[in-house]
């Protein structure tokens, strides 16, 4: 019985370390190296921010399909303002404002109007994507239109020389992801606000009867998810030094997958942001390791999808046996 509990609780974590162990064995010289791990942290940083903030709405049993289009739109809005000669801070601020407003709109549709999150955010996904095309005129904005202060951000970081890693630096994109992780963890785990979101996720009616302002909380949670998507969109635009109206679209499904993988790690099947981090790491490490092993891209997709399904299936099965 104790073994089953152990597996139910830590199966995903064991799988995670098994994956790391496998790559460390197959790629002895290049996988567990400071440089590669720093690369991975930067590679997953955008997905991580989306997934962390996606966790906030998933705590309440909701989800947000529009994060990918929101990320694209945020990048495009900033880039268009840059192209018109606005300073970096103005473009970034406008993009974040768009994220916040878009998130609030999602929250309004879901909590005030009462549309199912799937339908409401599917609608805003399409709207935001259309707006991104209109704003950018369907083009990729790149080159001299993107200020070097903005694109240079994703290529620089904090030097790790003082800790003995000469020539390496902790990328700013990784730093941002860590900051977002800390904020989301703090908000969800250490504040009354977070407890109330979990209460809504546990039983919305009961939470309401207990005096929790469900509508207002759901709306604010969606606003935070929209803001996170906008941050990720800016990170993406900085990394590729350009913006186009579809570049964020891959983030949504991966983010939801990461949260689901993370959910298998908690006893009650609740989303926890630190567990989401493990989900993101699994996806990122698989991409990095399988590329290094020269596994065909399409086979890689099948493996990644298979591992996500296996993690969730394993957890679901072990719960049934309890």
């Amino acid at each position, binding site marked *: 019985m104790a073994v089953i509990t152990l597996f139910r609780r830590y199966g995903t974590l064991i799988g995670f370390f098994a994956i790391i162990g496998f790559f460390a064995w*197959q*790629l002895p010289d*290049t996988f567990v*190296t400071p*440089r*590669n791990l720093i*690369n991975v942290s930067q*590679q997953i940083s*955008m997905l991580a921010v989306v997934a962390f903030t996606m966790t906030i709405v998933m705590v309440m049993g909701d989800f947000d399909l529009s994060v990918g289009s929101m990320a694209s739109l945020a990048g495009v809005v900033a880039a268009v303002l840059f192209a018109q000669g606005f300073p970096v801070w103005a473009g970034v601020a406008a993009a974040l404002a768009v994220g916040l407003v878009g998130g609030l709109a999602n929250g309004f549709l879901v909590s005030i109007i009462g549309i199912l999150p799937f339908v409401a955010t599917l609608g805003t996904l399409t709207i935001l994507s259309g707006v991104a095309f209109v704003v950018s005129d*369907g*083009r*990729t904005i*790149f*080159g001299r239109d993107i200020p070097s202060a903005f*694109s240079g951000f*994703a*290529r620089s970081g904090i030097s790790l020389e003082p800790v003995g890693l000469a020539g390496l630096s902790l990328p700013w994109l990784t730093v941002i992801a860590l900051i977002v992780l800390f904020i989301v963890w703090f908000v969800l785990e250490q504040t009354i606000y977070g407890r109330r979101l979990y209460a809504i996720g546990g039983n919305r009616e009961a939470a309401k009867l207990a005096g929790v302002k469900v509508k207002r909380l759901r709306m604010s949670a969606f606003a935070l998810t929209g803001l996170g998507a906008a941050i990720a969109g800016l990170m*993406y635009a900085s*990394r*590729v*030094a*350009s913006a186009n109206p*579809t*570049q964020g*679209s*891959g983030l949504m499904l991966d983010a939801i997958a990461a949260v689901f993988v993370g959910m298998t790690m908690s006893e009650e099947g609740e989303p926890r942001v630190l567990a989401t981090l493990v989900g993101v790491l699994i996806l990122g490490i698989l*991409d*990095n390791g399988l*590329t*290094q*092993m*020269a*596994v*065909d*891209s*399409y086979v890689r*997709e099948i493996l990644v999808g298979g591992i996500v399904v296996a993690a969730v299936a394993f957890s679901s099965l072990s719960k049934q046996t309890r």
Partner: protein
Amino acid sequence: MFRPIATMAAGALALAFAMAGPALAQSVAVITPYLAQPGTQFYVDGFTAEAEAKGWDVNVVDTAGDVAAVISRIEDAVTQSVDAIVINVDPAQVEAGLQSAADAGIPVVGMDAGSHPLLATNVTSNGYAMAAETAVYVANRIGGEGRVVMFVFDAFPPVQIRGVIADAVFANHPDIEVIDRITPDVQDGGIADSRARMEALLAANPEAGSIDAVWAAWDQPALGALQAIEDAGRADEGIVIVGMDANPQARDAIAAGGNFEASMAQDFVGIGARAADAVERLVNGEELRQSVIYVPTKLITAANVDEQ
């Protein structure tokens, strides 16, 4: 589980080559977000065929449209210390990855990727030469005199250079008059708006023979102009239409033997093969002086449209 097989294959090939000469099996990563697009598939096929003949270990990575993931995969290839990297994506968008390759001293070759200081070279078709060929085709076909309509798109650099050359060719013929230089709206792909613009122009020039030719910087406007001319019942006036890129729809129109007479075909497979040659020279320590290597293109007319 894939690695041992690949290593064994590479090892066997290396052995075979070691006996033949000093060449060693190179490992090359080909990274693109666009593998699902037909053109890119041809580049990659051309590259892999040539690379296999050379006995290299090639890893083709498709990021399914995700440009940031191209940077990530370039970083992974650098970590893996491949001998060379080949990309088919706008280099300006993956500069972060190119920088990490440059820092590690790994050469990066572009396949129709655009020029960039961090690329050892870019292998592509010569847009100037292609435009010259179709523009000269038009000028010769109408006997050096007549009224020509141009479809251009100056906002997109690879297409803009085509327009510049056609301008020069037509300007060099004193009896050729360019009656309009149209930039169609390309949101819908370019055919529909080009057709509408051509219809307006036909209405403005109602007399038979008042328009002698349409020169289009790519195939879609040429197809739109063809539809407009046919629907206006003016297909028998002998208006000569040329496009560029020789896409399947354009090839069909050329094969039909109507007004659409010519287009230019890029040698996608050849671009891939020449990219492999460039990689070979680079890993042999040669420094490439040409920052762009051009692969010849071919004029497609009714005479050769059925080839290949």
